[in-house]
Each structure stands twice: as structure tokens, then as C-alpha cells.
């Protein structure tokens, strides 16, 4: 699946992978996020943090009418205020995608799949 933009000169296809990478990349730079998690932790048998190559398992991009909806599955650091961290991811992902791709975003849904406790 991909998102298509047309302009005077022709068409631009942006594959979902690209959106996934950008959203995932923006999210992992957010403070309090220790990594991306897979949507189906049990089925995929991965309780670990996803590497960049499999961000697609933790970032689901849907297109509804003309808008993008992004679902993100994240692991948050223990001891941070989760609602704030999630809010930061939402605003950063939305901002970054609009800045880089110029695509309208309808929603960025954050699913906190885990909390990582690091011994401080």
C-alpha cells in the first residue's frame, strides 16, 4: 500500500514503509520512549524492542478517505509520566510527517505495550 500525491508534473508514490520509518524514527527520538514494540507481541514471539528494520510491526499506517491514521506501539521508560510521553510522540510524529511529506494526518494513536524498568 502506498500514498499517492499528484502534481503538475506527475505522480509521487510514497510507500507505507517510508511513513513507517519516519514515524518510528521520530518516535524513538522522543524523550521517554525506549523503543518500538510489535503490535502482536504473542503472535510474533517478540517481546523485545524492535529494530529499525521491523518498525513496520509496531507502526501501522492506514489511509481513511484522504487522511492518514497512524497506530504506534511503544515501550516507555519506567518513571516517566506516560501520558505526557505519549502526547509528545503524537505531536512529534504528526509534525515530522507533515514537515517531510506534507501529508495530512488525522490521528496518531499511541498504544503503550510495555514499560521498561532500568535500574537507575
Amino acid at each position: 500500500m502506498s500514498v499517492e500525491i499528484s502534481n503538475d508534473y506527475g505522480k509521487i508514490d510514497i510507500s507505507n514503509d517510508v511513513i513507517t520509518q519516519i514515524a518510528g524514527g521520530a518516535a524513538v527520538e522522543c524523550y521517554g520512549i525506549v523503543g518500538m514494540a510489535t503490535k502482536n507481541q504473542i503472535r510474533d514471539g517478540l517481546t523485545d524492542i524492535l529494530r529499525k528494520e521491523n518498525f513496520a510491526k509496531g507502526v501501522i499506517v492506514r489511509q481513511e478517505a484522504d487522511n492518514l491514521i497512524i497506530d504506534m506501539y511503544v515501550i516507555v521508560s519506567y518513571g516517566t509520566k506516560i501520558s505526557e510521553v505519549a502526547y509528545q510522540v503524537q505531536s512529534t510524529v504528526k509534525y515530522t510527517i507533515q514537515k517531510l511529506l506534507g501529508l495530512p494526518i488525522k490521528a496518531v494513536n499511541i498504544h503503550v505495550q510495555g514499560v521498561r524498568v532500568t535500574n537507575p
Partner: protein
Amino acid sequence: MKSIDGIQFAEMVRMGAHHLHQNADYVDTLNVFPVPDGDTGTNMNLSMSSGAKETEAQTDAHIGKTAQALSKGLLMGARGNSGVILSQLFRGFGKEITNDAELSPRRLAEGLQHGVDTAYKAVMKPVEGTILTVAKDAAKKAVELADKEQDIIRLFEATVEEAKASLQRTPDLLPVLKEVGVVDSGGQGLVYVYEGFLAALKGEKLPERQDMKSMDDMVKTEHHKSVAGFMNTDEIEFGYCTEFMVKFEDGKKAFDEEAFRNDLSVYGDSLLVISDEEIAKVHVHAEEPGKVLTYGQQYGSLISMKIENMRQQHTDIVGEGHQKEAVKPAETHPYAVVTVAMGEGIAELLKSIGASTVIEGGQTMNPSTEDIVKAIQAVGAERVLILPNNKNIIMAAEQAAEVAGIEAAVVPTKNVPQGMAALLAFNPEASVENNRDAMTDAASLVKTGQVTHAVRDTSIDGIEIKKDDFMGIAESKIVIAAPELKNVAQELLRQLIDEESEIVTILYGEDSTEKAAKELAEFIGTLNDEAEVEIHHGRQPLYPYIFSIE
């Protein structure tokens, strides 16, 4: 001073929070990363106040307990990225010293370092050039000095110095900061907190607000924001950048900064007020600078006044061309129809039957997506329907509908008659989807005939066409080509009009005349004497005739 206890630490926190609070607006103006939304100062202030509030309830002299209270208050009140980072810094700090009743310089340094370690652990990819870097550099300095420095004030002094130096280096680490010419907002917030800590340690009072020097920085960022915020000169609501100082005088109204600020905020925006006992410096974008000055005079005499016309400046910046393009938004309509057409006559006709905006364009001069988006935005409606009236523009229109930022839909009309039929089916009460469907249906019921010139010799659909011939096009199929305009028009009408035809509209273009159009109307009477004929001067180029048959 050899050590600090919980009571002293609570005072440090209170002072840190107060100093940050005083400068929160300035921190907001620096906020460009990660999202330039200008709320870092506000968020950090709310986080830190929540932390300080928690320590107030804590009257124990045990510093470990006070630090725990701070940590808890910060966690609960954490707002925004920087707020969360701040809470992490003091969570690690609190954890490290939880069993200490008092802090030695060595333990303070260890606490700071532990805070930084904790904060770094909570992020996968730390971005350097932010509050994290400032905290790290400061803690490192504290640890370096901890072995030889016995005085906690001197140790913390050096720590704050390093934090400030690190803050000045942030633009070198984070390119976006360099681009805008600011230091990191979160880092600046942390420096304010640390400065407050230090002042409390020394028993000093901090200046209530930043000194006059930073007013210039604030004005610079305010201007930067306001220039970036306006695409059109017309959008500037408050046209005069007004700056002045009031020198307070005895016998005049007593100065109260908050009331002063509130009163001035009525006159405009981008308001900045900095004051001390003798003077207040004011910057405001107002529409009526005279009133602002008169207001200021209640408090004393005015000095160093400067008023600039920002609309003039903005016009100079964006240039003449942009001025011309800028379409003044009409009063807001709930609904608008944006359409595309060639020729003034057609544009007028479309407007007379309900189009809000007609974009100049058509065959050979298609408007871009951007042109359409601009037109949509300029019309100032909540919902928009777009009629491209040309099959080459449908894609651009659909793209424009997507990015316009308001509810918009495209009725895929391929020519002007379809556009007119669609317009007549428009229902301002119906939803965008219902209108799109109804208008698309209406457009499909109209038959279209167009007469134009051939630009070269060719053969299409089995018809030989010579350069400069007239071609008759029924819908999108060429049905006749001949050198005589009248013959072509008549033959085209003959093919289009049948017994069911009720209304025939003739739009004659630049290359035809009213007289010729009337002759065609008579000819239509011979084909179907019940059909009603309407004639309009479309003034369209390239197409001597456009026919619409319903």
C-alpha cells in the same frame, strides 16, 4: 558552606521554580525543537511549580526526603518533553541521595550525575544540544570539582557556569537552533532553575525579570514569529510595531505590571513588558498605537518611542507580485463552490449561478494544485466543492481538496456546460458528499458540444482534419471538421439535438459574434421547435462556441 539540608534544599527549589516562572515567556520564545510550538517554558514552569509545591509540604530537614517530595511532585506535574526530562533528572537525583540527611559537595555532584544517568536511560536516542546535554555537562563539572572543592556554594557556582556555557554551545550541536539563532529552550529553562538554586544557596535575590538586554532577543523572536506567521499582508491584524519606555513619575498612576500588561493586551498582540522601579519597556503590535501611548502616559513620561508600519514592511518583504496574488478573503460563508474557467463571460456566468470563485484556466493553461488550494483558502468557507471543468484539472483539484485543510470534494466536471449543470444542482443545505453525488449526476445529464480550431493536420476517429479547420466535438469525440465555422456548428448541433432536448445554451467566444450566435439559435428552431435557446457571451478564447444541451 560545607553542606545543605532539606530545609535549605526546599528553599533552593522554591527559588528555582520562581526564577523559571519569571522567565517562562522568554523560554517559550526559544522553543523550536522538536516541535516549534512555543510551549517549553510554560510546560517546564508547570512541572517545576508542581515539584516545588510538593516540597513546601515537606518541612523535614532530611534532604533525602525533600528530594523525594520534589521527585514525586515533578512526576505528577510533568508537562511536555522538557518537563518529563526535568522530572527524570530529579528522580535520579532523589534516588541517589534518598538516605542522605545532608549533602556534601561530593554527594551533591553524585546526585546530579545520577540524575543525568537516569535521564539518559529513559531515551533510546538522546538528542544532543538539548536540556539533556546541558544537564550532563553541568553534572560532569560538579563531579570533576567534587574531590577538591569543600565549599558547596563554590561547587554549585562552577556547575551553573558550566551549564550556561553548555547552553551557549547548544546551537553547534543541534542545527535547527543555529538556523533560527537561538539556544535550546529546555536547556535555558534548566539554567534558570539552577540559577535559582544558586541564588538561594547564596541567600541572594534574583532580579525579578530578565535584564533589559534580553528584551531585544525577545523582540527579535516575536518579530520572527509574526513575519513567519503571515502569508498575506492582509492577514496582519495589528499593523504597527510600537515600542516605547515609560519613565515613572511621582503623582502619576502607580505602576502595577500585571495590570499594565492586561490593559495593553487589549490593544494588540506580541506584547512584551519589562520593568524595574523606574522604567517600563514596552513592545506591542497594535492597530492604534496612539491609544497605547496615551495609556502609557498615565504612568509617567514617554521616552525612546518607535513606531513602524508592519504592513508596509511585510509588503516590502513579500514583494509586489505576492501582493497582487493575495486574494482578500470574502466574508466567511459556510459553503463555497470553487470552479475553473476560461473567459470573463463564462466566469461571470458561473458566478451568477452560484460559483464563489472562478479560477482563470482551462485548456492549455491548467491551474496548479497550489492555485486551487489558494483559491479554496481565500474564499474563507468551511466547506468547499470544486468543479474543475476540464479533465486535465480533475487530478489537481482532488489533490487540492486533500490538502486544503477544510472539508472539500471534487465534482469531476470535464467542461463548462457540465460545470454549469452541476452548479445548478448545488444545495447549500446538503452535506459535501450529498452535493458531490447530486452534482455529479446533474453534470452527467448534460450534453456538450464544443467548436474549436485545429492546430495541425491529423486524422482522428476516421475524420480528416486540416490545420485551421474548425472541429465540432460532441462530448469528447470529434464528429466533424470543416473550414466553415457555421457549417461545423450546425452539423454539431444536428448531431446533439434530438426531440428530448429542452434547453440549448450557446456560449459564443472571442472568435465569434452575437449575430452568428443568433443565427445558430434560429437554426436550432428548425431542428427542434420546442427547445428553448439561451445565448451568452462567454468571451472564451480558442472555442468560438460551446453548446450545452439539456
